[in-house]
């Protein structure tokens, strides 16, 4: 076991799976000699050669389409987009082809591909480098959407994504790429892609979150605990499919739901979680559910970015309101 960053865990999973399955191909812009703009693919080209680690021309639609083609023939391509904001040129290939291949061919062909992209704000990046659009892909039937928030989960979920026979949008929270460290065992064990992870037990309120916001949510839970409020913190990890069973089980104890995500509020995944709770578990609730989310505006450039980012204080305030206002 070694202590490593989330980014290194992604790299480790790629090394592991390329070594154990010759069908795994890594492709994208700068993934070869440069090891990717964030260095997620470092060392792969040296180890596996330029037939399996492919620097593509600068063309995301091409990357999307080539990946679909490779996957249709039984390869397991893992495509890298440099930032989630640059997935958009490839959307036609992702939505019209990757997500529908199985359905279109009635199962004759599939698209066992992984599309990786760093996402989210808070790193003082330029325009179009801070998107959080997981809802867009969650709303497209045919994809699995996965977001790891710790090194070990990044490792296990990426293995699962590569082994999945369906296309997986794998979004990596770049704000915590290098700041979150933990021990990772290179044991080849995949994690389930349909289960969320309960990171902290609590009786008073259920905090459901994912990606980099997991960090602030856990901090908030610690602070709330000092104030006498015990929060259960759930890392959703798998956005599509949504594991509502774990959330409902938690709500049976707490009766209070707070969803925390960085993406814009309107049309966000938080709304879906709350809607499902209203449909199926209304009677578990002691208080109306609540969201702490990004605002419905364009992510400001970096001078004003901090005002947009969620903070521990935002989560604490919302949680207290929920618990104290609805005793």
């Amino acid at each position, binding site marked *: 076991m070694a202590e490593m960053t989330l980014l290194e865990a992604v790299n480790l999973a790629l090394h592991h799976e390329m070594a154990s399955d010759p069908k795994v191909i890594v492709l994208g812009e700068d993934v070869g000699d440069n090891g990717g*703009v964030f260095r997620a693919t470092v060392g792969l080209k040296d180890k596996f050669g330029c037939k399996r680690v492919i620097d593509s021309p600068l063309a*995301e639609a091409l990357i999307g389409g080539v990946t679909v083609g490779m996957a249709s023939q039984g390869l397991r391509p893992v495509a890298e987009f440099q930032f989630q*904001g640059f997935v958009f*040129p490839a959307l036609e290939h992702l939505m019209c082809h990757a997500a529908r291949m199985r359905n279109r061919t009635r199962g004759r062909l599939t698209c066992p591909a992984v599309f990786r992209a760093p996402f989210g704000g808070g790193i003082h990046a*330029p325009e179009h480098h801070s998107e959080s659009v997981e809802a867009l892909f969650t709303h497209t039937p045919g994809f699995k959407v996965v977001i790891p928030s710790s090194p070990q989960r990044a490792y296990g979920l990426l293995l699962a994504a590569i082994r999945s026979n369906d296309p997986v949008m794998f979004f990596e929270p770049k704000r915590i790429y290098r700041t979150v460290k933990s021990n990772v065992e290179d044991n080849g064990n995949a994690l389930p892609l349909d289960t969320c992870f309960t990171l902290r037990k609590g009786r008073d309120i259920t905090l459901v979150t994912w990606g980099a916001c997991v960090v602030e949510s856990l901090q908030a839970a610690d602070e709330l605990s000092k104030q006498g409020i015990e929060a259960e913190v759930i890392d959703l990890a798998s956005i599509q499919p949504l594991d509502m069973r774990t959330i409902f089980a938690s709500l049976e104890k707490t009766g209070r739901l707070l969803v925390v995500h960085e993406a814009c509020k309107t049309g966000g995944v938080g709304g879906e979680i709350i809607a499902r709770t209203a449909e199926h578990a209304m009677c578990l609730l002691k208080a109306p559910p609540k969201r702490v989310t990004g*605002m*419905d505006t364009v992510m400001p450039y970096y*001078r*004003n970015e901090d*005002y947009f980012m969620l903070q521990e204080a935002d989560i604490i305030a919302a949680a207290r309101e929920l618990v104290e206002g609805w005793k």
Partner: protein
Amino acid sequence: MNIQAMPMHRFIDHKGTLVTPLPAWLSHDMLVSYYRDMVLTRVYDNKAVALQRTGKLGTYPSHLGAEAIGIAIGRTLKSDDVFIPYYRDMPAMWARGIAMEKNLQYWGGDERGSDFHSESAPHNRPSRDLPFCVPIATQCTHAVGVAAALKIEGGHHAALVTCGDGATSKGDFLESINCAGSWNIPLVFVINNNQWAISVPREIQCGAEFLADKAKGAGITGITVDGNDVVAMLDAVKTALEQAYRGKGATLIEAISYRLSDHTTADDASRYRSEDELQQAWQYEPISRLKQYLINAGRWTEQDETELLELCRKDVEAAVERYLAIIPQAPESAFDYLYESLSDDLHQQRDAIINKAMRMQGAKHG
């Protein structure tokens, strides 16, 4: 293969020797003024990188080595033409009349950096130029729209769009030159072929020897130009614009140059690019050859050079001071330009960001 040593449209070679007679419209006085522009933008570039290193600027894409391309574009475009830049185009924007501090403001993380009024535009009215484009090659399609609009308007104006060599791999680029050919619109494409797209070398982008050859399939004029020779660039841009003004359609100019810097301040080019290659490229760079030419022609001295550098440093320092003195935008400005008017819900979110900002600023100061 050293592509910079290949035959292409060129007047002054890398040793400062005239290899083709200067165009008739170009005087030595003009050349001196372009030289001064190029030096100024290089001094600016060095300063901008230093500002990033000291935390006063965000990620910054240096234009080191692209000065001749930018100055030729900025000085040749007329004020009524429309410029559609990509992110490495500071010299062209500056030469077109956009203040240096606007560029600093943009890379300093302030949206108002794209709210420029071109001082060269008539009556200082808002510029019609588009803001910097970050998603690669998308600006090429916008440029087709701009040029079509200019054609419909019916004046004798043109649009000019820039992109990198990597951008020419994207469908957007190919669709744009194709459409420009079929619509016969007043548009000039300039490829800053600086040999690298982050870590990916030019030959991995496509199998063509010259990117200008892509023009043939689109039915437009294509020309490969020494992008380190400001005269060749001026000549090519001028000819292309004149062709556009006369309704003779679009031109694709491939400017062969070299990115002497890292891709951006977030990149480390030594990971993928050899020191030898870089050193060789420095021998072809645009400023020293023009200086040598002007010295040989008796139009420049080391004394002039010293004075110029002093002046440039002063100008740049003054721009930096103006940049640093800019009052920050209000946090709620994130909502103020989203729609013509805000819904009640967005008003509430706007109020929420004001409250949050007051809390955060209170925590910082209190």
